[in-house]
């Protein structure tokens, strides 16, 4: 950009060229018009929000174009291509990060710009039309952020946008039709993405450019609204002081966006899965609306009331501001109305965040969702994404599916580290003194967090009753196990096991039993200890003293193909204890003579209850047989 310079006596070649160009295009007049707009009262920092908004939009156009070059809108490629942008392509994380956070910056700047316009009464005659043009621009930006949110086709975008389209579906009369048109059908699918993408990258930006052009044109026509404090001060032109102020504002915007893009990274949750719930929340700037329609006083009148009628009425009031504000008292009303609205929105937003932070169940769901998000990226990096999409990676992954299968099939009796496998506490509602409260549902079987590991085996040997204490809640059948042979053995041998001289012996026995699992995820088994443990298992002889009966007296144990230590005597076989094979056989038929036999109280998981695929996923997870990325990747 150059300011028009007065003709010098000897025009240089550049000046000649520019003169030639100006003669043909008249550009100098345009530049003059653009840069020499007078600013009565002088350039001011408070005038920069409009330029910052325009700048943020330009950043969106630039980064949006580049994202477009790698994005593929379909249910099997949207998440996948965004993953590729974010985690594989050069600077993809940065381009997406800028786009992601500049969108949020636009929302903040919109709020500021609006606040300023209303506070200063800049909507009044003759600027009413420009005020309305600004409101149209605001609606377009909201539509842009709404359509953009869905495009990564991740769990968060999918479920949050579903809420939005369901709200559209609640519109009076033509709601269902609007929803179907937006979605491209009665359900979310390929066409939802192609339509949202066409709106997001095509129509909406074009509309925004058109309205922005009108907005700036009308703004230039009437000039800046000068605050009282600046009246009478010397005027500036737009160039260079105000341009500098604007440019600094843009730089600050960019710096903040870059800071977030670098330190937080744009989120990409797990691929959208209609069968998997998600603790959905809209993006933070829509949280107030989310919370608003949750109030019972609002929700009792239906979704349309809180999410459509009331916002529409408020929006109409905003559109009428230029008329309401004609009188002094009207302007004060507008200011008050805006402040109340903004405070209300901020209050609701804070309220939602605080409530969510204190909602343990919600937090547990978020953590579990985050676990999925990390996992699918680790899997995609390791083995690539199959043609049918990245969701398949999670579906066939024990680490992802194990906890879910545990929740569905095991958590009615067992716990996993105190929760249901997915991190969720299992609660029940009790009524006391007419007040309903949530209390933990007592488990009726052992906590299986470290089942089969050294820690587990040590606990079973040294304190059987405590390990299986939850069986007390399981009625008569459970008590039977707690008063059985193993419980008695444990009590009788507790003293000899606790003897410090036998620490090494206990270690050896634990090592031998833990080695049965063949686990590779715990530290490698010590062959010397295993060999010593084998002898103890067979003979019951410890370094100092001996068991009153050896393990082999009751438990069957076959080591390798040839060596049989014991054929057992009524207690569960410990051959390959807690290995994949053992656990699968046990789950399929815990009442088999090799396991609990007639004493069994455990549920039988036959093919009808648990498919072979699910059984493998569950068991592989429990025995730690799944891909583990290096620490750096996770």
């Amino acid at each position: 950009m150059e300011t028009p310079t007065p003709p010098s006596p000897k025009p240089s070649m550049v000046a000649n060229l520019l003169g030639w160009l100006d003669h043909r295009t008249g550009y100098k007049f345009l530049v003059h018009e653009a840069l020499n707009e007078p600013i009565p009262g002088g350039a001011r920092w408070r005038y920069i929000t409009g330029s910052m908004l325009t700048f943020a939009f330009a950043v969106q156009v630039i980064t949006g174009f580049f994202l477009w070059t790698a994005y593929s809108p379909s249910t099997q490629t949207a998440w996948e291509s965004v993953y590729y942008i974010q985690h594989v392509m050069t600077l993809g994380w940065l381009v997406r990060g800028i786009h992601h956070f500049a969108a949020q910056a636009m929302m903040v700047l919109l709020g500021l710009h609006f606040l300023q316009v209303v506070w200063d009464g800049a909507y009044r005659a003759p600027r009413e039309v420009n005020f309305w043009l600004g409101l149209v621009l605001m609606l377009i930006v909201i539509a842009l952020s709404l359509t953009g949110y869905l495009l990564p086709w991740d769990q968060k975008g999918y479920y949050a946008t579903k809420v939005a389209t369901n709200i559209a579906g609640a519109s009076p009369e033509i709601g269902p039709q609007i929803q179907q048109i937006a979605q491209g059908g009665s359900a979310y699918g390929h066409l939802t993405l192609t339509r949202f993408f066409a709106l997001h990258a095509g129509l909406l930006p074009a509309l925004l450019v058109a309205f922005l052009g009108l907005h700036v044109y009308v703004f230039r026509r009437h000039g800046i609204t000068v605050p009282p404090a600046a009246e009478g001060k010397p005027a500036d032109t737009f160039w260079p002081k105000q341009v500098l102020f604007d440019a600094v504002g843009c730089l600050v915007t960019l710096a903040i966006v870059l800071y977030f893009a670098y330190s937080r990274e744009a989120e990409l949750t797990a691929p959208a899965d209609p069968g998997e719930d998600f603790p959905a929340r809209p993006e933070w700037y829509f949280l107030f609306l989310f919370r608003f329609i949750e109030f019972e006083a609002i929700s009792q009148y239906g979704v349309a009331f809180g999410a459509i009628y009331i916002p529409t009425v408020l929006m109409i009031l905003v559109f009428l501001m230029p008329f309401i504000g004609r009188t002094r008292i009207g302007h004060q009303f507008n200011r008050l109305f805006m402040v109340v609205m903004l405070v209300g929105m901020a209050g609701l937003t804070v309220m939602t965040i605080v409530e969510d932070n204190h909602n343990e169940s919600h937090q547990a769901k978020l953590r579990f969702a985050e676990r999925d998000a990390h996992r699918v990226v680790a899997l995609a990096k390791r083995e690539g994404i199959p043609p049918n999409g990245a969701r398949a990676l999670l579906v066939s992954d024990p680490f992802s599916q194990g906890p879910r299968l545990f929740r569905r099939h095991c958590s009615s009796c067992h716990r996993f580290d105190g929760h249901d496998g997915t991190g969720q506490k299992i609660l029940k509602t009790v009524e006391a003194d007419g007040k309903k409260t949530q209390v933990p549902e007592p488990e009726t079987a052992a906590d299986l967090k470290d089942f089969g590991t050294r820690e587990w085996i040590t606990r079973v040997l040294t304190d059987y009753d405590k390990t299986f204490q939850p069986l007390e809640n399981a009625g008569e059948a459970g008590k039977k196990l707690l008063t059985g042979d193993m419980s008695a053995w444990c009590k009788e041998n507790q003293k000899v096991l606790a003897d410090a001289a036998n620490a090494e012996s206990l270690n050896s026995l634990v090592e031998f039993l833990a080695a049965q699992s063949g686990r590779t995820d715990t530290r490698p088994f010590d062959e010397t200890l295993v060999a010593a443990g084998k002898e103890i298992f067979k003979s019951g002889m410890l370094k100092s003293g001996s068991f009153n009966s050896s393990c082999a007296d009751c438990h069957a144990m076959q080591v390798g193909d040839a060596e049989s230590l014991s054929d057992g005597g009524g207690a569960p076989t410990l051959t390959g204890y807690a290995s994949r094979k053992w656990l699968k056989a046990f789950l399929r038929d815990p009442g088999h003579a090799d396991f609990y036999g007639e004493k069994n109280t455990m549920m039988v998981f036959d093919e009808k209850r648990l498919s072979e695929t699910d059984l493998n996923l569950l068991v592989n997870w429990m025995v730690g047989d799944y891909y583990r990325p290096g620490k750096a990747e996770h």
Partner: protein
Amino acid sequence: MADSLPETPPPSPGTVESPGAVAPRRGFLSLLAVIAGSIAGLVPLAAGTIFFLDPILRKRQEVGGGMLQAVNVSDLPTDGTPLRVTLKSDIPDAWTTYRDRVIGSVYLRLMPNGQVLAFNDTCTHLGCKVDYQPAEKRYFCPCHQSAFGLDGARQNKTPPRDLDSLDVEIKDGVIWVKYVNFRTVQAKKEPV
């Protein structure tokens, strides 16, 4: 206030401030404005441009990079007749990985000394697939009559070079081939 603003055309720049007195300051402000504006605009543009240049900036996974399993040595005719064998590999295409897809075919020939000779069956002339003709004991290209001997040496001037031989390894009776495609037309054997 706003209402009182005159709706007059903008005054010419000279009337706003006396140009002589403020010229240096104005020049400095202009410079700052240009610098700040340029940085703000160029950063996203530069990030996007680098992102767009990803295809030449990032080292890509090679398709079928390592040795690919072909057939057993015992599958080859013992009289030295070449056998055409297709090779399979995982094919990455941006974010998608296609498992176990055919990526090309080669001719394998068992030599009297037990070694195996492998040729990429793509004609070095213009990339058609050559066929082995048992009667003439030669590889022949149906497109422009390129012909190659059993050892891959060209028999006429149509192709720019001999057939492209490939590295072969034999492990436990199984033949492994390193599959590479080469540039056609030129005399130099150069991977694509």
